[in-house]
């Protein structure tokens, strides 16, 4: 391979090879399902290369690990709430009455060889599945990859995240240990808080009063069949849309809105992505071997009269639990109907709010900016200061809810009072996101200015020059054209002008109020941005020649190798 002559045609040179052993089977299959046409196109499909494009793959592979380990667990786990007297291998609970579900979880942990490993792999993979979905979503958000034509895929992704949370919570509930039962008890309280119909929902879901004996068999079917089925379907759709729309890429020399530059699926991404699956599985297995997760035997069987200090949900529900802890006591009764807003708002409505805002965001942004074009080039977070600021404000709020969810652990770990933590958070949840928004936006604009400076005057060399009259200045090295291009290859946003108050006949224009709001929002969105330099500015900066010294020669080894995620040239 290394001796192959490097020409443009080298990648197609292999088509001259004879397909001796493959010709037969290929023909047999193609005669029946005729996939060669599709395979021909897709096998050499190009994917751009960047580390952040692999985050979604972590989620995908974790899902595969979940399916594999879940099938193993289902061979032994018995989702029944029928009471049995435990006589298994874990001595401290021998003779104790418990549900079959909990007993079979103990058997999986102590009697089935590799069962504990698979349980832990399954739980770690779930942790990673949701965490990877979240970071993948953040990557998509902060780079503007959800813009047209990918809004649909953004919505599909959100559905995946929500279903993943429900699926994770269902799994957390299945072993019927003290923690999972406590979680269900809280979930039952959340159902009861739904105005007017809450009690009925709770009775229907639990088949009567909590805890009853129906819930675990019901949630088991949802956990192993219903939700994974939907997840699988949505993931397939997510991937098909990705293939159809082709992956986004970072702007850079030769990388335009009309092409994809990268490596072919076969063989490079088959090896890299396939290899990454093994890496994800390997890391999960190592975590299953080294880090104990959810030691169900230590918590004992669920009993509604027992509880343990440090009763927390898994991390992806932690923010909801934190909101429940943070909420003041707000409950009232109108016309004999009780509204438990102290539970309903943080426990039910907040989830709807978060996902509602996330789902609406691409469309709101599109409306405000009036940008209806297709975008296949990613934006650097600094080049969309308002969006980045919204994102950071959201992360700040989410982080505060997380802290609230672990307030008892934080209280004992750092020796503070959880009442103080909660009171502080009740204020911070309103103040901190606003501050985060302002600070982030200013930082982004500062970085935009810095980028513009770099384009206009070159990058700082670190060499301090002293002029004959004693003035000190830093020598700037002009950017390579590739680097300058990478820094300027993004759109120049339009700020919507205020529409005239009246139309040309002097009559008040009908949509004026909406248009006004839009124009104002557009100004809020963009007005403070430092736009990239114009050609004139660049010419002027060069003409001024404030760097009198000759531009130093670039090291011959520092050949341009594309751009990195910061848009700076990659060098070796």
């Amino acid at each position, binding site marked *: 391979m290394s001796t192959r002559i490097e020409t443009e045609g080298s990648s197609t040179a292999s088509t001259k090879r004879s397909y001796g052993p493959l010709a037969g089977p290929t023909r047999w299959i193609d005669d029946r399902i005729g996939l060669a046409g599709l395979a021909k196109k897709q096998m050499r*499909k190009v994917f751009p290369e960047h580390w952040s494009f692999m985050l979604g793959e972590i989620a995908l592979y974790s899902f595969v690990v979940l399916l594999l380990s879940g099938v193993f667990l289902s061979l032994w786990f018995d989702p029944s709430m029928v009471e049995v007297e435990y006589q298994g291998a874990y001595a401290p609970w021998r003779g104790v*009455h418990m549900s079959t579900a909990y007993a079979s979880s103990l058997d999986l942990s102590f009697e089935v*060889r590799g069962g504990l490993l698979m349980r832990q792999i399954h739980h770690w993979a779930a942790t990673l599945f949701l965490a990877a979905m979240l970071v993948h979503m953040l990557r998509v958000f902060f780079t503007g990859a959800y813009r047209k034509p990918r809004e649909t895929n953004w919505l599909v992704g959100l559905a995946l995240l929500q279903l993943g949370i429900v699926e994770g919570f269902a799994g957390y509930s299945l072993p019927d240990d003290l923690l999972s039962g*406590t979680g269900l008890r809280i979930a039952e309280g959340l159902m009861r808080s739904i105005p007017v119909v809450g009690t009925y929902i709770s009775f229907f879901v639990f088949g009567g009063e909590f805890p009853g004996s129906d819930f675990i068999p019901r949630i088991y079917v949802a956990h192993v069949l219903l939700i994974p089925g939907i997840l699988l379907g949505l993931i397939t759709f997510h991937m098909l849309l990705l293939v159809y729309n082709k992956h986004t890429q970072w702007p850079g020399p030769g990388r335009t809105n009309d092409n994809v530059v990268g490596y072919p699926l076969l063989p490079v991404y088959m*090896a890299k992505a396939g290899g990454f699956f093994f890496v994800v599985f390997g890391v999960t297995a190592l975590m299953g071997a080294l880090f104990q997760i959810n030691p169900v035997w230590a918590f004992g069987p669920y009993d509604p009269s027992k509880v343990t200090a440090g009763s927390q949900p898994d991390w992806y529900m932690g923010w909801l639990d934190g909101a429940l802890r943070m909420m003041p006591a707000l409950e009232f009764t109108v016309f004999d109907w009780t509204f438990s807003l102290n539970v309903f708002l943080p426990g039910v409505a907040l989830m709807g709010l978060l996902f509602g805002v996330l789902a609406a965001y691409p469309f709101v942004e599109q409306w405000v900016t009036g940008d209806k074009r297709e975008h296949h080039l990613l934006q650097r977070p600094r080049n969309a200061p308002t969006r980045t600021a919204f994102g950071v404000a959201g992360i700040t709020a989410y982080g505060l809810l997380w802290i609230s969810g672990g307030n008892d652990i934080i209280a004992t770990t750092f020796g503070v009072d959880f009442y103080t933590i909660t009171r502080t958070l009740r204020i911070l949840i309103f103040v901190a996101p606003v501050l985060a928004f302002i600070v982030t936006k200013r930082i982004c604009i500062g970085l935009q200015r810095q980028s513009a400076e770099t384009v206009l005057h070159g990058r700082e060399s670190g060499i301090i020059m002293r002029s004959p009259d004693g003035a000190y200045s830093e020598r700037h090295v002009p950017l390579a054209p590739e680097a300058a291009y990478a820094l300027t290859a993004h759109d120049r946003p339009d700020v919507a002008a205020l529409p005239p108050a009246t139309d040309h006949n002097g009559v008040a224009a009908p949509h004026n109020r909406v248009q006004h709001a839009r124009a104002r929002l557009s100004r809020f969105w963009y007005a403070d941005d430092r736009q990239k330099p114009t050609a004139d500015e660049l010419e002027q900066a060069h003409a001024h020649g404030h760097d009198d010294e000759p531009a130093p020669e670039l090291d011959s080894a520092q050949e341009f190798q594309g751009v990195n995620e910061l848009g700076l040239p990659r060098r070796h």
Partner: protein
Amino acid sequence: MSHDEHRTGEGATEGGTGSHPVGGAASVPAKPVHDGHRVELRVGDPVADPGLGTHEPRPTDIDPAAEKRAERQISLLFAISALLTLGFCVAYFAIPRDTEFAGTNALNLTLGVTLGLALLLIGIGAIQWAKTLMDDHEMVEMRHGSSSSAEDRAEALAAFEQGADESGFGRRSMLRGTLLTSLGVLGLPAVVLLADLGPLPGDDPRKTVWAKGVHVVNDVDGKKLRLDDIQFGQLVNGQPGVFFETEDGEPLYEGTELLNAKAKASVVLVRMVPDEIVNAGSAAKGVEGVLCFSKICPHLGCPISLWEQQTKNLICPCHQSTFDLADGGSVVFGPAKRAVAQLELGLDEEGYLIAMGDFPEPVGPSFPEFYQD
């Protein structure tokens, strides 16, 4: 959208040709940005696209020795992986289930580490292969707009209209109406069929097994309690005595029924020096400073038994609602709205603690009908 015209012009991309230059604003006419700010003219991009750079070879591309070395290294990774997988199988049979090693279970540790490393090495090997030995010329693929062509769209619409027309769906309003009605009511069975998911709530959330004369006993062993058994500053996790009673050798409550009953009836008994109880009404429901409260949090139903005997505060470990048991279980802090319910206590003729009735209000989390009768 009149002020938007310039975009409609360039919006040709929406039509699906997908071809406009990077920084598509280049074609946009000059236009002031914002009155209060610096007026900026849109005169296109300052730097032209220099195009893809030239391909630089890797050491493995030009040095056969380096190539051989890389191939050997990657093969070694795969070979070690295979050995580890075999080690996994050996460990599965060789290590007894309950062997302890370094404070953990030896079997779990060995199986996980061998499997994990075996998988990891395959992954690392494959990636390294791609990075060092597979052809690394960047390829360029052109994009095509996500939409179909205008003709396709028009044809699809025409086909649909033709079909709709041939069916007469638009014209035959009676057919359409009855069909849509029949399809619509099909949604009802989907809901109706679920009615047997659970019984209607009825009075269940309001009642517990507590009744006048039911003994308040110690949880786990069912020991009946006398006043003298309970010291000042003591906490007893209690249950109704009926959970421990049997009839013909069969317990009155067991299995699901017991758990359902426990989820409402669990209590805590505390004893305070009578002077410390600030709520006289609450003190009157107890016996000589022994008070009995529901153990089920009125916020979301977690069992609350963190009683700080110095502050008299009862704290829920789930969401930190804090109740002052010296003040009738009123809320001191946290998301709970209602005080924790109190059970009136009395003594039977033998001096054992009994309940004087059920809780005066439903226990556990609120529900919409909470204050209805």
